[in-house]
């Protein structure tokens, strides 16, 4: 074999080596991607199951808001009637259902404002005596599901 041929083959070998390495790396990467994805899917699955009802609950919340509003506006003359009591009980039923889904209300009035849970939509009148950054009014109830915020509480602070 001439030197030239040897050189040519050497070059070829190097080329193939490089290619083999590239393929092996690609293979490793694909395998790693797969294993990582599997792990991710497991995690996601657990999350999905836990939060499967989140979207449904989020769409139900405005209905509860309306119900709450209605109970805040009970006409005085029927305030004590059995019928009104029944409607109030529907609200309790609703809230029990939410509890069963791992959902709880976010505390507001009197709490220190925390942007993790609360969203400020207004500032209270100046001159009020309470401390700064304390929530003085809840405009919309916020909710947590399995300790994660699904809807922030809309509040007014001092």
């Amino acid at each position, binding site marked *: 074999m001439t030197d030239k041929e040897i050189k040519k083959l050497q070059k070829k070998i190097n080329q193939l080596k490089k290619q083999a390495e590239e393929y092996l790396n690609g293979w490793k990467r694909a395998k790693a991607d797969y294993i990582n994805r599997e792990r991710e899917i497991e995690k996601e699955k657990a999350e999905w199951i836990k939060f499967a009802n989140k979207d449904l609950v989020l769409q139900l919340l405005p209905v509860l808001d*309306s119900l709450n509003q209605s109970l805040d506006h009970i006409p005085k003359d029927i305030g004590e009637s059995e019928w009104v009591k029944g409607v109030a009980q529907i609200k309790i039923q609703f809230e029990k259902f939410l509890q069963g889904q791992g959902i709880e209300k976010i505390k507001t009035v009197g709490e220190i404002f925390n942007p993790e849970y609360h969203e400020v939509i207004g500032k209270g009148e100046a001159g009020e005596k309470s401390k700064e950054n304390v929530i003085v009014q809840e405009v919309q109830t916020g909710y947590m*599901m399995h300790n994660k915020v699904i809807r922030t509480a809309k509040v007014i602070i001092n």
Partner: protein
Amino acid sequence: MSKIIGIDLGTSNSAAAYMEAGKPKMIPSAEGTTIVGGKAFPSYVAFTKEDQRLVGEPARRQAMANPEGTIFGAKRKMGTDYKYNIFNKEYTPQQISAFILQKIKKDAEMYLGDKIEKAVITVPAYFNDSQRQATKDAGKIAGLEVIRLVNEPTAASLAYGLDKIKEKDQQVLVFDFGAGTLDVTIMNFGQGVFEVRSTSGDTQLGGTDMDEVLVNYITDEFKQKEGVDVGSDKMAIQRIKEAAENAKIELSSTLETEINIPFVTATSEGPKHMLLKITRAKLEELVKPIVEKCRSSIEQALGDAKLQPTDIEKIILVGGPTRMPMVQKFIEDIFGQKIERGVDPMECVSMGAAIQAAILSGEEEVKDVLLLDVIPLTLGIETLGNVMTPLIERNTTIPTSKSQVFSTAAENQPSVEIHVLQGERSMAKDNRTLGRFMLDGIPPAPRGIPQVEVSFEIDANGILTVTAKDKATNKSQNITIKDSSALKEEEIEKMKKEAEKFATEDRKQKELVDLRNQADMIIHTSEKALKDAGDKISKDDKHAVEKKIKDLKHVKDKDDVDAIKKAIDELSSEIQKIGSAMYGQQAESPPPGESQGPQAGPQPSGEKESKEDKKDKDEPIEGEFEEEK
């Protein structure tokens, strides 16, 4: 090697993506919500008086209470000497952007479980050198090596795969209509390079304006109808805003929706309710002035590029508001052609950045080498009753392998024939035959006892090897089929179409065959039970069973599904009476030497060995070969 992520550092919202198995995927923002929640987050940074730093959603939530400590839209100040002075501390726009990038880095590291050190960040096409340098600096401050800045319209084009077009130069228009800004870019793509020809836009125009006009309309209508101004009722406004947002989204797919807010507010006279119909036409009328404002930017971009609308070959829409049918139509009318579809307009910029990152890190080349194919049609074998039993479903990515254990259909059956099939039809005869072979030398045994493992293996080149092995003797046979995917595109389509066309018919026939197999099975079990029982049961009982067996035999080869079902049920309850009388709790007589499982009923007679085929378990596969004749 750690991943390089792509970042869309936007004026109003920011998002990030990464490449996985050759496809861009969004990285969800941590934000205390769930994975089901949003992917992008608002580009807000805030400092509280207690010197706490907030980024994203939490910063936005407290903005109203802390306006002096909240920064929004720092992108607009990039590359200038402007300094934010927050509680006596100075911050450059780069630093503020760096806080946003830091959050993205942290979220990505948590989500991917890996350190992130490098990123590709997108910038508007019109960004000048100092603005670009500022963006790079922001990355550095955040601990990210910015390996490339990519123009936002280029990133969007990558997400749509425009870089794959090789034929000729293309004029591309990218219409990026975000929450608060409009950017129109015209690019020339050729020889693998995107070249910006002109940019134009409006820094004070966006989707937020649309939300505003809709809320204003709703409150105005309410005022006219009820005479009540809800403007100062914060709770009412909050509920109206949410309802308006929902209505807007709904009206992208329906023509009419309703704003229904009971007890929206109260006056001295009592509660007031809001019930308002909004049509898509009304919404479009409301936002029309805003959409029309985009026209001048488009015209300017065309003029600067010295192009006519008809010169544009590809149109890409970016940003949430472009989801509105009206916006799409507006653009299509100007250019007289369809927009590109298929990628989420809110995700395409960050996805494109991730694609660019992959190209730069060399992943793209590897992907090209490793282009994985799928099998176009289902592969399987023929089993009892001329049924096609699929082993590898169509659209499975290859290389792959799968095996399943089958058994015999007759007593002392000495051999099985493996008939390899391709196609989507239920009956063997309607599918394409790829090959046949025999496995013989199976030791004499009752039906259902021998275990024959059939394995399908397809390599990366689509070459299929089918192996059958008798587990008792380890004797095996195989066949290699090279042209399993040699069908022409039209043939594949034809076969798929036929499968759809005959789906109902096939299902009925399959049901009938399954039922017949079930009938055979129960006749076999019953006869065996009678024989085993001998004279331990009364003559009357024996006669009753024999009669039912006869009835079933009579109807089983006819086409009346209900009659067969009825006869099976009757025989089954008759034989159970005997069974429970004789064996106590055992309902049916298990064949000797084998656990009860596979033979007890018309369930799959073989255990499945592949991990992937769990879903198959619900389907009644009559896992027995047709007896060789």
